[in-house]
C-alpha cells in the first residue's frame, strides 16, 4: 500500500516537475503534451536528452491522448503524443499537415488482486472478454478453474476496474476485445470511452495510476493498465491466451513478436488488434508522437528532428528497461526517414 502510494506520488511529481522546469538560458524549449501511457518512458527520454544537449529543454505533460491532439490542433505545443493515432479528419485541421511517428510500443496487461496473490493466472480469451462483458462474475468460475489447475481460486466477486476518463489505453484495449469477440464489437464497441456493462461490480478510476491504485486496494479486482504501471506498482499480471492458443506473459518476447506480425503502412498508422504469431502477446500497441510538418522556425524543426533521432537510437535502449517494447529495426528505419518531413 505504501509503495503504490509513493508510486502515485512520484508519478504526480513527474507530471508537475516536467511542466514547471525552468527554461534554459537563451536556449530552445520544446513543449509537448499527450498520452499518459508512455509518460514514464518519455519523461526519462526527455530528461536525458536535455542533459546531453546543452541549451535545449523538453517539457512533456501527460494529460491524455485526446488532450494532446487538442493541444496540437490549437497550436499550444510543439509536439504531441497519442496512443490513438490522429485521424485524417483531425489532421486536416492543422494547416501544413502533421507527421505521425510511432516512437515506442507497449503492452496492456490485465492486473489482478487475489488473496494470497497467486502468480501467473491464465486467462483464456473467451473468459477475459466475458469478464469485461460482465458475464463471468466470480473468480471461482468453472472455466477459470479449468484453465488454472492447482490454483486456489476463491469464491469472490470479480470487480472490474476501468478507466473513468477518455483514454487511448481504453481505445487499444477495446479494439483488441472487439477483435476477439463479436459480442463485444456489437455491444460496447471500440473507443476512447465506451458504454460499459451496467453492474455494481464495474468501477472506474481516473488515469492509469488511478486504476492501478484501485486494483491494489480492492480484493477481487481486475483491470487493464499499461505494463510499466503494473510492473512498478508490483501488481500481479495475468497470462493471456493469444490467437494461436498460447498463454503469454507480458514483458517478455511476446511484445516484439506481436509487433513483428504487422506490416507498417506508409502512413505509419498500424494497429495490432489481435496478433497471430504463436509467441505474440495479444494486446500490444504502438504509440505515436505527432509533429507539425511546417514548424515556421527552422531552429525548432532541427531540434525536433534531433529529438526524434535521439529517441530512435539511445532512447530505444531505455525502452525495454522501462517496460516498453523497442521498435523493430525496420520500423525504426522507416520512422527515421519519415522524420525528415518535420520542417
Amino acid at each position, binding site marked *: 500500500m505504501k509503495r503504490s502510494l509513493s508510486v502515485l506520488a512520484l508519478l504526480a511529481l513527474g507530471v508537475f516537475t516536467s511542466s514547471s522546469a525552468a527554461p534554459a538560458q537563451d536556449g530552445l524549449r520544446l513543449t509537448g503534451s499527450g498520452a499518459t501511457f508512455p509518460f514514464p518512458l518519455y519523461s526519462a527520454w526527455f530528461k536525458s536528452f536535455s542533459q546531453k544537449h546543452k541549451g535545449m529543454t523538453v517539457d512533456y505533460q501527460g494529460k491524455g491522448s485526446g488532450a494532446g491532439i487538442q493541444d496540437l490542433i490549437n497550436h499550444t505545443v510543439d509536439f504531441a503524443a497519442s496512443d490513438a493515432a490522429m485521424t485524417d479528419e483531425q489532421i486536416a485541421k492543422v494547416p501544413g499537415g502533421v507527421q505521425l511517428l510511432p516512437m515506442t510500443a507497449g503492452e496492456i496487461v490485465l492486473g489482478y488482486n487475489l488473496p494470497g496473490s497467486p502468480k501467473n493466472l491464465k486467462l483464456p480469451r473467451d473468459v477475459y472478454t466475458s469478464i469485461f462483458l460482465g458475464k463471468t462474475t466470480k473468480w471461482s468460475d468453472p472455466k477459470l478453474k479449468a484453465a488454472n489447475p492447482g490454483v486456489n481460486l476463491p469464491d469472490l466477486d470479480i470487480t472490474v476496474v476501468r478507466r*473513468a476518463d477518455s483514454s487511448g489505453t481504453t481505445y487499444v484495449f477495446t479494439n483488441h476485445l472487439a477483435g476477439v469477440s463479436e459480442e463485444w464489437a456489437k455491444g460496447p*464497441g471500440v473507443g*476512447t470511452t465506451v458504454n460499459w456493462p451496467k453492474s*455494481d461490480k*464495474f*468501477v472506474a478510476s481516473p488515469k492509469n495510476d488511478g486504476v492501478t491504485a484501485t486494483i491494489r486496494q*480492492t480484493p477481487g479486482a481486475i483491470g487493464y493498465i499499461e505494463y510499466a504501471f503494473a510492473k512498478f506498482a508490483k501488481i500481479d499480471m495475468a497470462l493471456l491466451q493469444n490467437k494461436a492458443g498460447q498463454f503469454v506473459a507480458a514483458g517478455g518476447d511476446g511484445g516484439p513478436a506481436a509487433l513483428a506480425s504487422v506490416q507498417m503502412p506508409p502512413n505509419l498508422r498500424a494497429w495490432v488488434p489481435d496478433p497471430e504469431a504463436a509467441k505474440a502477446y495479444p494486446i500490444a500497441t504502438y504509440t505515436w508522437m505527432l509533429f507539425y510538418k511546417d514548424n515556421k522556425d527552422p531552429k525548432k524543426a532541427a531540434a525536433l528532428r534531433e529529438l526524434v533521432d535521439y529517441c530512435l537510437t539511445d532512447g530505444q535502449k531505455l525502452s525495454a528497461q522501462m517496460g516498453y517494447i523497442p521498435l523493430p529495426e525496420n520500423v525504426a528505419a522507416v520512422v527515421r526517414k519519415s522524420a525528415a518531413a518535420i520542417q
Partner: protein
Amino acid sequence: MKLVAQRPAAVSQSISGPPSRWDYAVDRVFRLLAQGGTWLVLLLLAAIVWEIGVKAAAAVGRYGVHFVTSSTWDVGRQQFGVLPHIWGTMYSSLLALAIGGFFGIAMAIFLTQDFLPPRLANVFRIVVELLAAIPSVVYGLWGLFVLVPAMRPLADAAYHRLGWVPFFSSTLSGPGLAPASLVLAIMILPTVAAVSQDALRLVPYRVKEAAYGMGTTRWEAILKVLLPAASTGIFGALVLGFGRALGETMALAMLIGNSNHITLSLFAPANTLAALLALNFPEAGPREVEVLMYAALVLLAITLLVNLLGEAIMRRSARRLAAR
C-alpha cells in the same frame, strides 16, 4: 462577566457633531464599492451562465429533455444521458449533508454553548477549520487508501446480515457511494460548523438568560429557544454545505467509482455530474464539449432548485414558528 459584556457601549461625547464633507465622501465611496461588488457578483454569474448556455445550446436542441431522463453515456454512438449522474449527485450530497450537517451543528452547539472553557473551544474551532484547508486530492487518496479498507469489513457484515435491505444490497468493491459520501461529509463539516457557530453566537445572550429565567433546562434552552432563533443562519450553513457537496469534484472522481448505474445500495459505485465533467472535459471532442456544457447547466439548475426549495421550506417553518 457576561453581564459586563452585555452593557451598552458607553457613548462618548467627543465625536458627536454634524458629519463633515469627508464623512459624506467616505460614505458615498463605500456605498458605491458595496453596490459595485454586488453587481459584479451578479454579472459574473450571468457571464458564466451565458457562456455555458451558448456552448450548450446545440446539445440542448439535439437531446432536449431526453438528456436528463436517459441513462446511457456512449460517446461512440453519440448517446448521452445524465440521469445516473443526477441521481448520484443528489444521493451522495444529501447523505453527506445529513452526516456532515448533523455533526457540524452538534459541533457548533458544543463550541458555543459554554460546554468548554473558551480557550479550549478556540483550539477545537481552529482544528475543525483546518479541515477546510486540506486539498481535495488528499481527501481522495485518504479515502482510497484508509477509509475504504477500514469500511470493507463493516460493509461486508452489513451485506451478509442485512442484504435484503436495499441500502445494503451489494458488497463494497472499493470505490462506492458510502466512502464518497463520508469523505464529502468531512469536507463540508468545516463550512457547516463555522457558519452555524456564527449564527449561534449572534443570538443575544439575553434570550438565553430569559429562557433560563422561564425555568428551562440547558437542553430545552438550546433546542427550543436558541436553535430556532439561530435557524436562519444554520439553514444558510446547510445550504452552503450542500452547495459545496454538489460541486465537489476531485475527491469524488477518485472515490465514487464512476459507474452509470442507478441503485439504492450504499456500497455500489455511482457517478456525479461534477466528476463526469472533470474526467471527460480534458479529452472531449467538440461534440462532447457541448454535451458536457449541457450537463454543467443541469448541475447549475439543480443547485438553484435546491436553494429555492430550501428557501421555501425555511419561510414556511418561520411562519409556523411565528404563528405559535
